[in-house]
């Protein structure tokens, strides 16, 4: 079997196996094993794309190039480390009586299916299937957000379902419009294949594509978490189990942004006036600014970092909106480091919240005294996400700011203000949580610290040194995105 088939088959097989098996002690290990197998398949796929260049598979159903293979690897990697983190975390949740065997079964099987759906969305060549997979990814996580069955989690899941459902319905309308525009020039069932659309993009009707892009940007933008359609995001992140917060924040948002990027390439080709880019710049800036100010008002630690995710997604949208080799490169780098570091933060936050028995920041105090590693993980992760050198976020934010100074000078002060506000908000809170005296209690199971520090280590490495193959990767993807 080739790597792509394995990559897509592993999570699906995992989901079915874990669903059929029910909850046992080994279920957590099986979950991690399936994620590891997915990661290995992703690595093999990457090696193939690096060697042979982009290719289509299964007829023209799937398409792999530099842009999606990099996200595939990232998704599989974070999926695997999150599965590792979830072992001790969910064991504690079971001990606390928050998870029953039935819920654990749902959790594990949906975790695998969720990964699978994201991988389908990333590798499919068909814009219609991309939509179906995005919706399916929402459906697999919606019951996980409400898995604790508290009033707040039900509310969060309902909002998540309805808002994302409405958003993604807009995206479907956009997809239909693209199909309408392409039906004449390409014809038949090939008219939704991205490779065909991309070759014929100059022939697509600009008026239809403008409207289609507006719908697709708002639609998938809902899932990216762009302001003003971000309302579901903080709730879903705060009320679901922490491993789910980590994969939602680190992965799902990226996949949604990827969908926007794919259609932006088409719209750019058809319109030739840079309008898609301007729209993304506008939404991106608004998102960064609004999220920074919302950050200051948060009391719940997971909610705060959810807003930080919104802020960073805005920054990426802004970067890709500017376009050009440097900004696209920076956007891709930012996608990578944000996924790594934000999930590391959620891992640390998850353990901290379990020790405190609460997610309210005022209840979490003196982490360093009780467990220095979790404390340092949270501290370093926060510094990294706030753009402190030498972490990777610094490098990508620096690149985004310098290219903004060149192409959109007026936007630079806005970005700087937003980043400053976010820094003040997060740093002061994290400081209070990490230092000082403690009333926290130790946990029955040792925390999974390896994923936290692997992620932070990779984030650090990307700030100091990006391996040549990865640079080549980003360059190819950035060139494909154009500007």
């Amino acid at each position, binding site marked *: 079997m080739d790597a792509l088939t394995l990559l897509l088959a592993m999570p699906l097989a995992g989901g079915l196996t874990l669903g059929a098996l029910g909850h046992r002690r080994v279920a957590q290990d099986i979950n991690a094993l399936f994620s590891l197998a997915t990661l290995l398949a992703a690595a093999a796929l990457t090696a193939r794309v690096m060697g042979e260049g982009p290719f289509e598979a299964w007829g023209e159903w799937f398409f792999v190039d530099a842009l999606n293979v990099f996200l595939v690897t990232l998704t599989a990697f974070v999926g695997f480390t999150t599965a590792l983190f979830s072992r001790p975390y969910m064991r504690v949740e079971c001990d606390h009586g928050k998870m029953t065997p039935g819920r654990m079964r749902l959790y594990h099987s949906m975790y695998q299916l969720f990964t699978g759906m994201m991988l389908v969305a990333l590798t499919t060549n*068909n814009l*219609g*299937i991309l*939509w*179906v997979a995005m*919706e*399916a990814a929402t*459906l697999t996580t*919606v*019951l996980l957000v*409400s898995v604790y*069955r*508290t*009033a*707040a989690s*039900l*509310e*969060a*899941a*309902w*909002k998540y*379902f*309805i808002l994302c*459902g*409405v958003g993604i*319905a807009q995206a*479907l*309308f956009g997809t*239909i*419009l693209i*199909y*309408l*525009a392409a*039906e*004449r020039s390409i014809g038949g*069932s090939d*008219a*939704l294949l991205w490779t065909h659309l991309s070759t014929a993009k100059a022939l697509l*009707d600009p*008026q*239809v594509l403008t*409207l289609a892009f507006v719908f697709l940007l708002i639609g998938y933008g809902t899932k990216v978490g762009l302001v003003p359609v971000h309302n579901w995001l*903080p*709730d879903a992140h*705060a*009320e679901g189990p922490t491993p789910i917060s980590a994969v939602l924040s680190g992965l799902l948002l990226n996949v949604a942004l990827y969908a926007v990027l794919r259609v932006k390439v088409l719209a750019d080709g058809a319109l030739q006036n840079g309008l898609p880019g301007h729209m993304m710049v506008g939404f991106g800036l608004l998102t960064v600014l609004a999220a920074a100010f*919302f950050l200051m*008002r*948060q009391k719940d630690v997971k*909610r705060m970092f959810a807003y930080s995710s919104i802020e960073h997604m805005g920054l990426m949208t802004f970067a890709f909106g500017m376009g050009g080799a440097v900004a696209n490169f920076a956007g891709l780098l930012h996608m990578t480091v944000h996924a790594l570091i934000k999930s590391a933060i959620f891992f640390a936050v998850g353990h901290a919240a379990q020790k405190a028995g609460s997610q309210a920041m005022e209840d979490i105090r003196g982490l360093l005294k009780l467990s220095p590693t979790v404390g340092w993980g949270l501290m370093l992760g926060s510094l990294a996400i706030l753009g402190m050198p030498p972490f990777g976020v610094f490098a990508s934010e620096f690149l985004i700011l310098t290219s903004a100074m060149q192409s959109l000078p007026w936007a630079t002060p806005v970005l700087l203000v937003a980043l400053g506000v976010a820094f003040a908000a997060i740093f002061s809170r994290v400081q209070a949580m990490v230092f000082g005296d403690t009333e926290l209690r130790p946990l029955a199971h040792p925390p999974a610290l390896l994923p936290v520090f692997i992620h932070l280590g990779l984030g650090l490495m990307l700030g100091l040194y990006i391996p040549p193959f990865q640079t080549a990767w980003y360059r190819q993807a950035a060139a494909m995105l154009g500007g």
Partner: protein
Amino acid sequence: MNAHALLGQSINLCAVTLLVLAFAMIAQRRILTLIHLFTLQGLALVVATVLVAHLTGDHHLYFSAAITLVLKVVLIPILLHRVIDRLHVRWDVETLFNIPTTMLIGIVLVVFAFQLADPIASLSASIARGTLGIALACVLLSFLMMIVRAKAVPQVIGFLSMENGLFFAATAATSGMPMIVELGIAFDVLVGILILGVFMFQIREQFDSLDIRHLERLKDD
């Protein structure tokens, strides 16, 4: 009038039926009647799809008409009926504020949708080109319904009715999406409605009511 033109006119008639039903749903206070209206809307969609299929000779459209029939006229209404029976909300009447204002907003939305769709409609290769505006209007009206409703079941029906509008757009403006995509969408809708059903029971269990206003606790303060 020849047969071809007659069929074209019938499609327009179906389109108008969809739109009128969308308006009727906004103004309807009884949950049971709302489900009947939704079933009717699904039926109008099936008829429209069959007509387009007959007119264009696209055989796969017959399949999508069959999927719609099974899903939106049979399965989902049955599920909804079972949900309202088990939750004992069959005879519930919702108090709606300001139906006239909502209707006026609805009319503005329809005008807006026609404006938006007008330049595109002329491009459409399909026979029923004027229908894209109606489809978009149905989507926006369902959206409006979701905003103004405070109970879970009507909100879900609004959501499903939005899906109807989108489906109609795909059938009327293009000649239907590729088969595999349609199957995927149908599957997502079915799973979605099952999950929403589960949710309604969970919400009921938690709050002893299906009022969405209970779900406004999470705010940024």
